[in-house]
Each structure stands twice: as structure tokens, then as C-alpha cells.
């Protein structure tokens, strides 16, 4: 058992990945029209964040309430590239300074700021989508984890970062688009991202990238580093006295989660067509933690379902009862924490998987009687 449970994929994992792949690549595209499919594509961009949170929070015990920061940084890096491409001198001929993004012109800025220049390059922008969040996470990580800030204190500080970044973006309207964000994005290297066909393609690109992140997450969890994270969560001191530099492991996993979130943010920008500070702040950051909690903070697959389900509920409910949604979300979070601390994945593992196993066992050996579960 000890040997088989550390193969990269157990049988359970293969089934889980296969079902998820079928849902994302077959069921959803067949079942939904292109408007709804695009919506689900948007939900799946949050799954990147939720998967990162499973690693940081579920496995490593590092609760970050500021993942929106990394999602936003990734999204803004993508949006800056798309905005520059949309702001050709021809498209912006009516501005007093043609060739710069429209919001800069509205704010009496007459030249492109130097730090916008590199975002003319697609390659630079794609690297920045991952590296800007990772570097920011690295700085926060070094500052916090080396000083052994953890637990609630860390959560509060990350939340403060989410608030700071939102305020900064809104305040620097001329450079960031302010509260409206960066809007009116049109093409990617000449390819119009606003058409239904493009949105469908982007949905699949998003799905493939999500699976790439899931595979990385799976690899990390099944490596010794994954077991170390669990050990750190339970007995941080003991890990130190087994000769590990606990801070460097926390920094690594926090950066990995930030990198995932950055990719999610960039895919959000591409699929939805804008990026704004409302996706960076405290509320979206906490929502992201809820996606992870609902899906099951110990399960990377569960986190994807959590992101899909909560967002789908959000869209459906906020269409009918907009003012009740936030209360409903809070209630959902409390319910999950109180009744199902391991979320959907926990419900599956405790109630559904044993029954399935019993069912299969019954078929193979008709004499076998399913064991009654005390938990039920």
C-alpha cells in the first residue's frame, strides 16, 4: 500500500481526472450554447486560483485571503498587452494623443509610461502573466515566512495587500484605467477575441492550461514536498528539526499558487474581454477561498467543481435575487465549514465512494455485503 499510494496517479485519481476532462471538454461544450460556454470558461479561470489554494491552504495550512491580487496581476498583464494592441494610432485617431490607451488620453496623459512599453511584446506579456504574480508572492513570502508570520496574521496581511492593490489601481486612474479597469479589448495578434468562434477556442485553451496546472499540482502533492506540506501543517517545529527550512517550502508553494492564479487571471481577461479592480479586492479574494472550501480544500479536482458550482449558483441566484447573493454565499461558507469541512470532495469520499465500491464489489462477488457506514 505504501508503494502504490505514492504513484503519481492512483486508480481513484485517474477516474477523477478522466471524469473532469469529460465534463470540461465534452459535456459542457455539448450542453451549452456559446454564451453559457463562455460563462463557464470564466468560472474555470477561478479554478486556477482554487487549485493553488488547495496546495497552499489545504495541504500547507497557509490561508491566503489575497489570491485576487495574483489573479488580478496576471489579468492586468494580459489586458495591458491587448489594450496596447487595440490602441493603434488609427483606432485612436480622435484622441488628443493618438496611439495610447483611451483612458490615458482621458486623464491628460500624453505619452505611454515607460513601464507600459514592454507590454507591446506578446512574449514579454505572457512571461509577465506568470512571473509578475510569482515575484510579488515571492517578496510577500520572504517578508512573512522568514519572520515566521503565519496563520491568522498571514491571512489578514494578504487581505491588506488585496485592499492596497485595489486602492492603488483605482487611484492611479491614468495609468491603470481606474475603477473601470482596462476595457474594450479587441484582438490578440490580429485575431479577434470577441467572436463566438474565438471564445470557443479560448475555452479549450483555458481547459488545457487548467489541466496542465492540475498535473503540476498532482505532481507536487505526490512528491515528498506534498507530504512535507502536510507535515508542516501539523507539526511545523518538528519539520524544522528534521532539517528542513520551513520558510523556503512555504515560499515555494505560495509562489506556485500565485503563478496558477496569474494564468487564471490572464485567461479571464481573454475570455471576458476586460480586467478591473473589482476582481482584485477583498471580496473576490474571499470568494476564491470559498470556491476552494466548497470543492474540498484537500482535493484539487474538488476545487475545480467548487469553482464551477459556486459561480454557477452565483450567476443564477444573482440574476433573480441580486441583494441576497452575498448573504447566501456567506451562509454557504459557514455551512461548508461547519458541516462538511472537506467540501464536495469530502462528501464524495465519505458517502459516495464507499457505496460505489460496495456496488462494484457486490457485482464481482455476490456474497459480499456492503458494510454499514457509521457516518451515515
Amino acid at each position, binding site marked *: *500500500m*505504501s*508503494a502504490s499510494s*505514492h504513484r503519481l496517479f492512483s486508480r481513484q485519481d485517474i477516474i477523477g481526472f478522466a471524469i473532469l476532462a469529460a465534463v470540461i471538454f465534452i459535456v459542457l461544450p455539448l450542453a451549452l450554447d456559446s454564451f453559457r460556454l463562455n460563462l463557464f470558461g470564466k468560472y474555470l479561470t477561478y479554478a486556477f486560483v482554487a487549485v493553488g489554494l488547495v496546495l497552499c491552504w489545504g495541504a500547507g495550512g497557509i490561508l491566503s485571503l489575497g489570491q485576487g491580487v495574483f489573479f488580478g496581476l496576471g489579468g492586468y498583464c494580459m489586458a495591458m498587452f491587448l489594450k496596447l494592441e487595440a490602441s493603434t494610432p488609427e483606432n485612436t485617431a480622435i484622441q488628443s494623443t493618438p496611439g495610447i490607451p483611451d483612458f490615458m488620453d482621458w486623464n491628460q496623459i500624453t505619452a505611454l509610461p515607460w513601464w507600459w512599453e514592454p507590454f507591446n511584446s506578446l512574449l514579454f506579456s505572457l512571461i509577465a502573466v506568470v512571473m509578475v504574480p510569482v515575484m510579488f508572492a515571492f517578496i510577500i513570502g520572504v517578508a512573512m515566512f522568514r519572520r515566521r508570520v503565519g496563520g491568522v496574521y498571514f491571512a489578514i496581511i494578504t487581505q491588506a495587500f488585496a485592499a492596497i492593490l485595489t486602492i492603488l489601481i483605482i487611484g492611479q486612474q491614468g495609468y491603470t484605467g481606474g475603477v473601470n479597469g482596462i476595457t474594450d479589448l479587441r484582438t490578440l495578434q490580429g485575431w479577434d477575441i470577441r467572436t463566438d468562434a474565438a471564445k470557443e477556442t479560448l475555452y479549450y485553451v483555458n481547459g488545457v492550461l487548467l489541466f496542465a496546472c492540475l498535473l503540476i499540482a498532482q*505532481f*507536487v502533492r505526490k*512528491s*515528498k*514536498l506534498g*507530504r*512535507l506540506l*502536510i*507535515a508542516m*501543517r*501539523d*507539526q511545523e*517545529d*518538528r*519539520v*524544522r*528539526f*528534521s*532539517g*528542513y*527550512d*520551513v520558510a*523556503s*517550502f512555504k515560499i*515555494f508553494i505560495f509562489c506556485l499558487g500565485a503563478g496558477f492564479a496569474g494564468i487564471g487571471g490572464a485567461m479571464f481577461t481573454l475570455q471576458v474581454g476586460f480586467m478591473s479592480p473589482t476582481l482584485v479586492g477583498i471580496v473576490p479574494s474571499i470568494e476564491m477561498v470559498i470556491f476552494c472550501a466548497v470543492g474540498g480544500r484537500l482535493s484539487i479536482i474538488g476545487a475545480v467543481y467548487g469553482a464551477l458550482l459556486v459561480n454557477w449558483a452565483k450567476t443564477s441566484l444573482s440574476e433573480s435575487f441580486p441583494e441576497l447573493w452575498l448573504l447566501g454565499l456567506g451562509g454557504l461558507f459557514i455551512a461548508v465549514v461547519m458541516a462538511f469541512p472537506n467540501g464536495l470532495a469530502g462528501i464524495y469520499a465519505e458517502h459516495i465512494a464507499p457505496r460505489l465500491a460496495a456496488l462494484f464489489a457486490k457485482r464481482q462477488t455476490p456474497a459480499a455485503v456492503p458494510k454499514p457506514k457509521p457516518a451515515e
Partner: protein
Amino acid sequence: MLDNNPNFLLMVEGLTVSFDGFKAVDDLSFYVEPNECRVIIGPNGAGKTTVLDLICGRTKATSGSVNFKGQELLNKREDQIVLAGVGRKFQTPSVYEDLTVFENLELSYPRGHSVFGALAFRRDAIVKARIAEIAATIFLEALLDEKAAFLSHGQKQWLEIGMLLIQDPELLMLDEPVAGMSVAERKKTAELLNKIIKDRSVIVIEHDMGFVEDIATRVTVLHQGKTLSEGSMERVQNDPKVIEVYLGH
């Protein structure tokens, strides 16, 4: 005196730690030779556990020096001290309850301590053989796949000793290794400790005098953060200062 011996493994000199003015350890000096088993005894609050905390970096010293194989330990992080060859067992068993016995031992195996080392770590035949060997030593070979949370108190203590053993430290520090054990477990543990202290230096904090007499090369009696007496068990037991501290309170 002892200071002239160049072959000490550990030299603690003038070690002092003060918590808001209270000196838990006060200008303490002692020297441990290779393969020596040093037992630290003393009344409650004498600073015994604090001394171990200072050596392994868990508590930062106010002043003094801890020299291990020619390296100063006081300015090192806990994990660097461990990698230098100092192992520490805590008073309450601290094992990873969510992991199996096998995984507990595996994490303590001295390889792959960096982030990328841990990612690249593979469970090869050498690791498996070593874990099997240690598990047999600590009487847990049948429980390798059991989660540590399901072990008895005594078995957790053994597991933690095993986790130290697999690190193969040159200096092993044990804080009350037989505390809270049943008589049968205690006997087995004494047997185990006798086996593992052979090829290394050990510092043990222990109250069980029978056990101390059995294993100690030399005994240090601490009182109010200072050395009260030091020497063989016999000498210490007959020291009038020690008798006064133990009986006068």
C-alpha cells in the same frame, strides 16, 4: 582541566538566556566528548529543557557560545543545526499524525532537504531498506502503513526516536524519553536507548534515577540555570550540594 581536551564534540561556554530579566540559563558551561552519554538532571525549573532548546536553536541565547565540531551553532537556523548533525527529541511525542509511520520516517531520511530536492526525491531501494531497518529497531515494522495518529503514546515516542535515528546525528538530545510510559514500554525503551546511544554522543534529560545510572557516562546537575555539580553518578549522588537541593526543597 577538561578545557584542554581538544577532542570535545560539543563545547558549551558561558551560555546565558534571559527572559525579561529572568535568567533561565545563567553562564552555563559544559563539554561533551564523542560517544559520551551525558545526563542532565535537576529540579523543576532548573533550565534543563531550555539548555536543549538553546543548543538546537529553538530558543535564541542572550550570550555565550555553543561550539559543535568547531562550528558555532548559536547563529544558525534550526534546520542548519540539524544538518550539522544535532538531533533533538521533544518531551511530548511530536510525530506527523496525518502521515503513516513509513512517511514519518521517510521525511526524516537525510536526503532532499531543499525545495527542489524534495520535488525530485524518489523512494528507492536504499531508502526503503533503511526505513525497514529502523522500523525493526523501534518495534514498528508491522505498523509501517498505519497513520501515526493511531499509535499508542509509547509507540509515538519510539517513532520519534526512529525519526532521529534515521537522521543518524552525531549528537542526539533526548528530553525525558521514558516519561509517560507504561512499565513494559519503559523497559523496551531503555533497551532501545541503550542500543542507539552506542555510536554517538547523547545528552539526555531524565528523572528516572535507575535509568540514569544505567546509561550515564557523566551527569550534570542543574540548579537555577547553573551547574551545581558534575561528574560520575556516584560522585554527584554523594555531593552535599546536590543532596541539599534535592532534599532541602
